[in-house]
C-alpha cells in the first residue's frame, strides 16, 4: 500500500510539475483550453457507440495537445488507463446483452455489444487523456479559476479545488501512517484486520485536523470563498487563444457532423 500511496503522490507531483513547464500549450489562456476540451468531450461522447472508427479519430486531439504541451504520450496513455475498471463496469452490460453478430474475423464473431463495449472503453480513455492534458498544461488551481470565470458557480469550483488539495493531504497522511505502522510491524505485510478500523478512523481525524489548519491559513490571508487570481504578470486572452479555441472547435464539430472515416471509406471503396 505504501508504494501505491507514494506512486499516487508522485503522479500528482508530476502533473503539477508539468503544469509549470513552458510550451505553446502552457502559454494559452486556461479558459481557451477548458472550452476546447469541453467541445471535445461533448462531440466525442455524442458519436454513436457503433461508430468505433469515428471515435478512434478523436484520439488526435489529446495526442496533438499533449505533444504541443511537451507531455510524453506513453505515460499519458498509461495514466489514462486508470479509468478502465470504472468504464468497463459501465460497458460490460452491452457486451453481455447485445449478442447480435456484427462481423466475423476468421472463426471469431464480433458482436455489436462487443463493439459498443470497446467504444465505451475508448471513450473513457480518450476523455481521461484529454482531461490529463488539460490539467497537465494548466494546473488544477488555474483550471478551477477558469471554471469560475466561465460562470460555473463559485461553491462548485471551490469545492473542486478543496477536493484536489485535500486529496493530497489525505495521501500524505495515509503515507505517514502507513510508514509509522510499517516501522513497528516487523515484517508483517498488512496490519491485522482489527487495526484497519483504527487506522482509517485516525486517518480521517488527522486529515480533518490538517484540512482545518489549511483552511485557517487561507482565512488568515483573506480567503472569502472566491478563488483569487494569483497568476500576476501572466498574459491574458490573446489572439492565439482565439485561434486555438476556434480552430479546434470547428474541426471537432465538423468531424462530428461529417463522419470523415465513413466518408473516406465510402470514397475509396
Amino acid at each position, binding site marked *: 500500500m505504501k508504494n501505491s500511496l507514494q506512486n499516487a503522490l508522485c503522479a500528482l*507531483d508530476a502533473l*503539477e*510539475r508539468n*503544469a*509549470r513547464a513552458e510550451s505553446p500549450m502552457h502559454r494559452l489562456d486556461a479558459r481557451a483550453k477548458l472550452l476546447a476540451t469541453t467541445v471535445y468531450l461533448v462531440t466525442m461522447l455524442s458519436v454513436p457507440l457503433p461508430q468505433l472508427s469515428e471515435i478512434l479519430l478523436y484520439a488526435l486531439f489529446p495526442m496533438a495537445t499533449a505533444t504541443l504541451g511537451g507531455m510524453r504520450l506513453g505515460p499519458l496513455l498509461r495514466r489514462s488507463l486508470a479509468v478502465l475498471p470504472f468504464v468497463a463496469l459501465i460497458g460490460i452490460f452491452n457486451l453481455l446483452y447485445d449478442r447480435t453478430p456484427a462481423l466475423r474475423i476468421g472463426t471469431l464473431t464480433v458482436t455489436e455489444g462487443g463493439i459498443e463495449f470497446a467504444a465505451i472503453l475508448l471513450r473513457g480513455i480518450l476523455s481521461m487523456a484529454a482531461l490529463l492534458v488539460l490539467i497537465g498544461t494548466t*494546473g*488544477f*488551481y488555474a483550471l478551477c479559476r477558469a471554471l469560475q470565470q466561465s460562470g460555473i458557480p463559485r461553491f462548485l469550483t471551490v469545492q473542486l479545488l478543496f477536493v484536489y*488539495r485535500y486529496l493530497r493531504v489525505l495521501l500524505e497522511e495515509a503515507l505517514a501512517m502507513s510508514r509509522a505502522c510499517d516501522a513497528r510491524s516487523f515484517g508483517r505485510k498488512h496490519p491485522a484486520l482489527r487495526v484497519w478500523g483504527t487506522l482509517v478512523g485516525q486517518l480521517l481525524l488527522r486529515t480533518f485536523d*490538517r484540512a482545518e*489548519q*489549511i483552511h*485557517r*491559513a*487561507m*482565512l*488568515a*490571508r*483573506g*480567503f*472569502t470563498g472566491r478563488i*483569487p*487570481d*494569483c*497568476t*500576476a*504578470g501572466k498574459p491574458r486572452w490573446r489572439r492565439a487563444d482565439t485561434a486555438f479555441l476556434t480552430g479546434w472547435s470547428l474541426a471537432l464539430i465538423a468531424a462530428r457532423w461529417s463522419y470523415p472515416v465513413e466518408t473516406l471509406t465510402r470514397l475509396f471503396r
Partner: protein
Amino acid sequence: MSHHYLQFDRVGYRYPGGREALRDVSLRITHGEKVALVGANGTGKSTLLLLAAGLLLPTEGEVSVGGIGLTPRTLPIVRQTVGLVFQNPDHQLFMPTVEEDVAFGPANMGLTPEEIEARVTAALESVGALHLRKESPCRLSGGQKRSAAIATVLAMEPSVLVLDEPTSDLDPRARRQTLELLKRFSHTMLAATHDMEMARELCPRMIVLRDGEIAADGAAETLFRDTDLLDACGLEPPCRMR
C-alpha cells in the same frame, strides 16, 4: 508611524467541546514591540495567537487590533493587519508554486496584477527566497518552507507579525537564518516559542502562560532569572543564563 497595537481585555476562550483554553487574559502590545509568548505545551499559546490573528473569536472579553475591536464584521481588516505564520509551514503553503502562494493574500486584497507582482517579488526578496518563486512548496527544505511561509505573510504588508514556533523543526543553520531574518523586521511581533534562546535574542519582553492564564509579563532578561517562576511553569532559562 501608525499606532497599531494588539490589546486583549479579560479574554477567555472555550473550545466547542467545552475545554477552556484561555482565562481572563489581558495584555497590550504597543507598536514595534517584540514579545515572546512562552509556556509549557497546552497552556493556550496557539489559541492566543489564533485570537490575535482573527481566526477565533473570544468567548469572553474583547480583542482589539489597532483600535479595531474583533467582531465577525471586522475579521477581514484584522486578518489583513495581523499576519500569522503557522507552526507547520505545510499547513501554510497550499498553492502549486511558491509564487502563487505568496500572491494568494495580495490577490484576496483585490490588488492589481502589477501590485501583486511587486509585493510577491519584495516579500520573497526580503526572506532571500526569490530564487524559489517557481518551485513547488512540497519540494522545499524545512528552512526554505519557513522562509516561504513568512513571505506569504509579508506580502500582505501586515502591521503585526504573529509567529507560532518560528524555529521549531529547523536545523541549527536554518534556525539561525530564520532568527536573523526576524531580527531585521521592524514589525510589531508576538512569537509563541519553546526556544528560549530565540526568545532572549529576539524579544525584549516576555509573557509567560500557565494553564490558560498569564503567569508573568515583563522584561525577558528579568523573567529568565526568576527560576521559581520558570520552574512552576515547566520552563527552563536559556543555556547562556544557567
